[in-house]
């Protein structure tokens, strides 16, 4: 708390209060959508049109502009979910609990997209849709972890209790994250090693790398948009008896 400027601390304190969060996100949402559309537009144009074909895979490699950002997001969102779950457990902040559970369906979708696009690419390139190597199997376990979180939350009626249970499940599942990332280095796998996220220089030509990074950013912004929308709905449901929600509804009518 000593190193963080007061303004930042105040910002987070305000954000943790549902009415402030609701009002603030109302204002930033249009900007986020503009940024998302621009990033996606430039990313796809660069990746599908400007970037050259690969020396070995030809045009099939272009699936990385969807596959790789989705796979990154599947890990990133899991970490957000686990950390906000832990904050919810320790500090009992309602908004942190909601961030955790609202992230789960988005993360599950990205995991599914990563598995599905990888499979489509695997058939022509590897010669098979699916293999049980360490990378593919650990990513599939990640999908099951997400589904487990969603299922557990749905199974418990008291949503504050449900949030605690879900946070513990998510935190135990965190061990899977380094396993997914390092699986291609620790074991022999059919999946190739890391291209961008390694200490060395990325082994991808810069003309292909820039669209990839744009797409990665665009997916991050998309996550933010989807997360905020889900949080807003969840907040309204949980706080339906609160004064500020009543005021909001009356305002709308």
């Amino acid at each position, binding site marked *: 708390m000593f190193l963080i400027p007061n303004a930042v601390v105040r910002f987070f304190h305000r954000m943790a209060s549902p009415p402030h969060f609701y009002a603030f996100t109302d204002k930033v949402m249009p900007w986020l959508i503009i940024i998302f559309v621009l990033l996606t537009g430039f990313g796809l144009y660069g990746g599908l049109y400007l970037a050259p074909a690969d020396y070995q895979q030809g045009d099939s490699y272009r699936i990385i502009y969807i596959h790789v950002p989705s796979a990154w997001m599947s890990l990133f969102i899991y970490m957000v979910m686990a950390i906000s779950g832990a904050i919810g457990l320790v500090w009992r902040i309602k908004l942190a609990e909601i961030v955790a559970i609202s992230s789960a369906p988005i993360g599950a979708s990205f995991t599914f997209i990563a598995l599905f696009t990888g499979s489509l690419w695997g058939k022509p390139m*590897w010669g*098979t849709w699916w293999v049980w190597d360490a990378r593919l199997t650990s990513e599939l376990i990640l999908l099951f972890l997400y589904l487990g979180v969603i299922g557990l939350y749905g199974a418990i009626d008291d949503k504050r209790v449900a949030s605690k249970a879900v946070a513990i499940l998510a935190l*135990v599942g965190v061990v899977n994250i380094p*396993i997914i990332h390092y699986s291609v280095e620790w074991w022999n796998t059919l999946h*190739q090693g890391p291209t961008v996220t390694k200490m060395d220089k990325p082994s991808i*030509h810069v003309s292909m790398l820039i669209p990839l990074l744009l797409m990665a950013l665009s997916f991050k912004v998309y996550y933010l948009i989807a997360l905020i929308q889900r949080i807003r709905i969840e907040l309204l449901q949980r706080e339906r008896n609160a004064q500020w929600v009543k005021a909001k509804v009356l305002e709308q009518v």
Partner: protein
Amino acid sequence: MKPARKQRLILIALMVIGASIATAFALKSFNDNLMYFFSTTDVVAGKAPKTALFRLGGMVIKGSVERPGDGMMVRFKLTDFSKEVTVEYTGILPDLFREGQGIVAHGKLNEQGVFIAEEVLAKHDENYMPPEVKASLKNQTTSGTNK
């Protein structure tokens, strides 16, 4: 920080650490089973199963691919840059199969120590570049060896 919160934070940290240690031990004991394929050195050293099916991974040696019959049978040598194993396969090879490419074959050894593959998968590498860059890289290395 309030004592109750501190306690909860410590509990959570212990839980995550405990789960990590348990997983690390489990993975360590199953390490061999998590390997998707055996290397050619493993096969030459006799570590691979003699009679059962297993997967063999390695790089196709340049100039080793031949088609001895007039059928679909292909014979090539695989290497991990230390030991070599001869592989025979009858069937359609994946698009990425070529000399100098990493592959994973599923099959078993015959009495002569030749690996009879039932399935061949291409293992793609992590390098992405346009064909022109690849060509210029090739020129650099060949002119380098000519000197």
